């Protein structure tokens, strides 16, 4: 095996040095009652060439954006990834290093993450960001746990029903062992944004969580949400699944959000069947010591040179054990670096233009779908995804279109029973006008 360098001669000489007669002797500590009764039951090893063949055939067995027209976002977005990103990210000095415990030989990772933290804080309008969380959903769950810690003794959080349903499920999983109470706020069926009226007279609330743009693509009024949260002495946690939106719309920090968290996959990270992505997490400096996750800080070396280190680790599990702010250690370091490369590649000028293009594409797609009998469901402005009521009998057509390698949005009925027959669509810069017109044409063909 090419990864295993030992020759028989090496093994013999090493055993002699150790003073045992066989490799098996090294495993004497494993008693009979803990050993397997059979040899490892695994397929025979594949050569590199057979491995590639096998993997390629599995990959071909999957409808991906390179072969299909997928008009779907819902937390995972198709965006162009500049060639420089995989190229630079693939440098093995980045990929084959571990957590930067030894800063003098990890300045590459450390500066890259410090830059990621800074760009993320600027993007979201916050004081600081951590080094990353696993994904947007667990970032939201940890944000609410943080708010519950800060809200000493409070047991309740309110979540908008227009937050991605999967995110709400992860929150429920994280909050259930400690028996925190989750209250859901409805969305207004006309505007598609959160209805905050239920917040009145709500006692013991630690946090209010709102997603913007929300699961329907609608832009929420975070400033109002922040006022309501602060009136009830609770924190506003603002979530997102599409960070590109902040190239155009007001960032959550400028509207009074206390914690901002979400998914950064859109920024230079392949969709990759939903993972690995990037949990972005930002907060105010006043709350830094309650923040979960790792964080990189700037300092100086003995010669006064600028350098970077992992810092504030007294919050973390390896020091505080059961009193830690979180148990997270390995996070999504390389994905955070990818997103920083992407933010640097776009720049302040580029992100505005790309965000505008995304909004234009969605508006255009909405327009041509209306031409085929779809109707918009909500009145609020959207970013790059939106909900349309389908013409009668569209479910069968949706299935037919898949056979033609087109995914015409996603039916919302299973997530929101009241939206049975409504579909969530998404258009980004990767969909050309031609793609969208082809979709409309195909719908019309199938309908007639």
């Amino acid at each position, binding site marked *: *095996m090419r990864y295993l*360098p*030992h020759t028989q001669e090496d093994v013999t000489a090493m055993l002699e040095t150790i003073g045992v007669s066989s490799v098996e002797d090294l495993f004497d500590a494993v008693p009979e*009652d*803990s050993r*397997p009764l059979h040899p490892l*039951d*695994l397929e*025979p090893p594949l050569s*590199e060439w057979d491995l*590639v063949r096998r993997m390629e055939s599995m*990959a071909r067995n*999957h409808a*991906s954006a390179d072969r299909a027209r*997928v008009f779907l976002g819902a937390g995972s977005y198709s965006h*162009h990834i*500049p060639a420089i990103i995989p190229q630079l990210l693939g440098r093995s000095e*980045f990929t*084959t290093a*571990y*957590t930067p415990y*030894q800063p*003098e030989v990890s300045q*590459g990772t450390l500066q890259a993450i*410090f830059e990621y933290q*800074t*760009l993320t804080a600027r993007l979201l309008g916050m*004081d600081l960001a951590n080094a990353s969380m*696993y994904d947007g959903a667990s970032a939201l769950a940890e944000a609410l*746990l943080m708010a519950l810690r800060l809200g000493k003794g409070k047991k309740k959080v309110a979540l908008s029903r227009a937050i991605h349903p*999967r995110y709400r499920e*992860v929150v429920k*999983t994280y909050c259930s*062992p400690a028996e925190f109470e989750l209250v859901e706020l409805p969305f207004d069926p006309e505007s598609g944004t959160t209805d905050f009226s239920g917040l009145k007279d709500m006692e013991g609330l630690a946090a209010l969580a709102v997603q913007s743009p929300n699961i329907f693509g609608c832009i929420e009024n975070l400033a109002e949400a922040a006022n309501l949260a602060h009136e009830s002495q609770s924190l506003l946690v603002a979530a997102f699944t599409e960070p590109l939106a*902040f*190239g155009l*719309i007001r960032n959550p920090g400028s509207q009074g959000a206390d914690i901002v968290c979400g998914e950064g996959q859109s920024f230079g990270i392949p*969709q*990759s069947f939903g993972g*690995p992505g990037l949990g972005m997490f930002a907060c105010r400096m006043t709350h*830094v010591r309650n923040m979960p996750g790792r964080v990189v800080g700037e300092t100086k070396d003995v010669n006064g040179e600028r350098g*970077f*280190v992992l810092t*504030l680790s007294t919050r973390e599990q*390896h020091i505080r054990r059961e009193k*830690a702010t979180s*148990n997270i250690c*390995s*996070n999504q*370091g390389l994905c955070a670096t990818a997103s920083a490369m992407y933010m*640097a*590649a776009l*720049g*302040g*000028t580029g992100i505005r233009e790309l965000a*505008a*293009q995304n909004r*234009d594409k969605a508006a255009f797609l909405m327009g041509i779908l209306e031409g085929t009998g779809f109707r918009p469901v909500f009145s609020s402005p959207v970013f790059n995804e939106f909900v349309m009521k389908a013409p009668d009998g569209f479910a069968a057509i949706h299935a037919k279109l*898949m056979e033609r390698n087109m*995914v015409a949005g996603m039916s919302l009925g299973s997530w929101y029973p009241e939206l049975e027959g409504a579909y969530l669509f998404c258009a980004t810069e990767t969909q050309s006008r031609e793609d969208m017109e082809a979709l409309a044409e195909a719908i019309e063909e199938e309908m007639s």
Partner: protein
Amino acid sequence: MKGDYASTGLIFKEPLLWEKGRKGRRAFSMPERDVPEAEALPEGLAGEGPDFPDLSELEVVRHYTRLSQWNFGVDSGMYPLGSCTMKYNPKIHEKLAALPGFAMAHPLLPESLSQGALGLMYELQQMLKAITGLDAVSLQPAAGAQGELCGMMLFEACFRARGEKRHKIIIPDTAHGTNPASAALCGMKPVALRSGADSILHPEDVAALMDEHTAGIMITNPNTLGLFESNMAAIAAIVHEKGGLVYCDGANMNAVMGYVDMKRMGVDVVHFNLHKTFSTPHGGGGPGAGPVCVRAELEPFLPLPRIVKNERGYGLKEDCPLSIGRLHAFYGNFGVLLKAWAYIRSLGADLKKVSELAVLNANYIRSGLKDTYDVAYDGICMHECVFSDKTLKILGVTTLDVAKRLIDLGFHPPTVYFPLVVSGALMVEPTETETREELDRFMEAMRRIREEAEENPEILKSAPLRTKVRRLDETAAARNPCLCGR
């Protein structure tokens, strides 16, 4: 030998991103606008856009190329970081993960369009079952710590289903720091368990702590001293007898593949770190993956969705009323799972050999250095060996000094000051992919440092001398945190 040591090479200075660039530059190929402009956003919703620097493509490329050159990775040299299993990461895996069929796959397409990825995940589940001897797997946890958290949630759900609530969990002093943190997130209080004089756990000590209010025990096996917990099966029997459950932290699985059957050992839940045992690149701190394997009794509680095989091929099972729910928006770190699948398929039953050679390498280092440094436990170890600072302290030298000096000699330092049960611990995990010559060079460097400690301790205290930066002021960094650039 002198010529073998690392030298400085080219180290460029490189400013921070926002200290470069000019407004109006771009490193991104903007697509042509082919649709009309949408109407402007209403006042109050539109923002300024973020204050990002504008750079050209070459500026970005040079920036990250230079940054990367300040990093030490497995591809640069030996990285004997104990408990982290920094073995060689096969290059072919990076190519496989980038296959468009997988890299461009949307997670919410119907099962019929997702057979490739679902099939791969199903097969990986089967392989992990074969390697552990356990009955069911969830691939969802995104890292080892999330795997632990998942495990504790499974415990909690299992007791809830029995109509019980247990508040305590036994955690040995040789456990990873994440263990108590994970348990605390599930509202359990850790009860400390001390290892015996022989540095492993003993059934009678567990029996003294185990009662009806205790959920069970979390054992790292092999433990953080690199020793196998030989009494695990007996300990598990004691825990089970009182209705408790047994969790195994499998971070050190690289030592025992083909040598243990988790089920026979009495384990109810174990997590893997795929980035350790199955060699998916660590990425400077992720992404990793921390799948959990469980005994049949705990299967109903595994996270949603389950990846199953049915008459239509591979599918997602959502209908599991006892499940703890979701831990991830989708299915976990699929791109990492794919690399682990490739690694296991490349080795097959040779995984046993992987463990044998990992253990051989660790013992070779332990034997070779035991006369120069104080070995924390003098006897056969598993995948890693731990040295204390007993003999260094006399010379006025610290473990940290030794670690920093190793950098000058071309090696990444081992894990330091962990486990806490050893004074000034230095934890060396060579892994199976290092050659005997490399281990010899490492030991020679360690011996030379020992000589320097006696003859010229100053050089140790001022190390590292050849890196981009010298020792950094970590105290100042924590006292006046600067976490965001201006």
